[in-house]
């Protein structure tokens, strides 16, 4: 600090919130299966919609969901955006594609990345398939899927 420091014009006031997240029964089941390399959602007994990841209830019908349904790791891009601004603490380097992906047999899109393709070629309706991380890296996380990649010929 010099002899005549500049006047104060700003202050740093970081806020750090400590969370203890509990997955709940439905998400715990989902994460236990994804650790085995399987994608298991739940079907609503009212509207028959299949939700991945499951939340233990159907938001549309307002009733519990219990029936488990295993689905494939392939689907279509329902919508997407190209992220250009780095996210603090996120190791993924922009630009990258964040997409809502509707897996075959499900009725609600899940958020994931699309890679192994020029960002400019990603389009709504594109067929994509999961690129799994090596089995020895699997844990209780949807990130066992590194990203989704285009299916040949789509």
């Amino acid at each position: 600090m010099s002899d005549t420091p500049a006047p104060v014009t700003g202050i740093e006031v970081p806020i750090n919130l400590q969370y203890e997240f509990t997955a709940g029964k439905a998400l715990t089941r989902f994460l236990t299966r994804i650790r085995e390399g399987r994608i298991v959602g739940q079907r609503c007994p009212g509207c028959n919609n299949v939700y991945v990841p499951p939340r233990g209830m159907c938001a549309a019908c307002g009733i519990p969901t219990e029936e488990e349904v295993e689905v494939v790791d392939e689907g279509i891009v329902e919508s997407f955006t190209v992220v250009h601004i780095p996210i603090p603490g996120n190791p993924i380097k922009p630009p990258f594609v964040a997409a809502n992906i509707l897996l075959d047999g499900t009725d609600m899109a899940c958020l994931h990345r699309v890679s192994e393709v020029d960002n400019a070629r990603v389009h709504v309706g594109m067929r994509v398939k999961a690129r799994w991380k090596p089995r020895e890296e699997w844990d209780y996380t949807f990130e066992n899927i590194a990203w989704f990649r285009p299916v040949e010929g789509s």
Partner: protein
Amino acid sequence: MAETNPELLTKSFELGYTYTRSTGPVIGHFLTELREGRIVGTRTSDGRVLVPAAEYDPVSAEALTEFVSVAEEGVVTTWSWVAEPISHHLLQKPFAFALVRLDGADVPMLHMVDAGEEGAMRTGMRVRVRWAAERRGSITDIACFEPA
């Protein structure tokens, strides 16, 4: 975390927001003076002195521009004892949150009093500033108040 089919999965995580706030000229001057070890307030249209310095007149809503120096000592107008500080409290021992009206000011400001024990606290007691070892232009340049 259990290895096989746990009943419920839990995970702790921290969500952080890296805010930087602009102080504006009035609060900026107040903090600049704090960094120099001085406490200033602003004078209102009805002659009162507000500490910490306020930007606008509470009666006329005009911008306040006259700064007034006040003392490092004052009186506790009310207080609340914190017997068990939690992790984000700046004093990691029992202390009081208190409203302190500094000599020369007409309103009290919120800060902490390190009185050692609850029995040493009383409304009307005189306290003085304990400055932080290193002052950086922050309200925490006042580490706390202590009995005078």
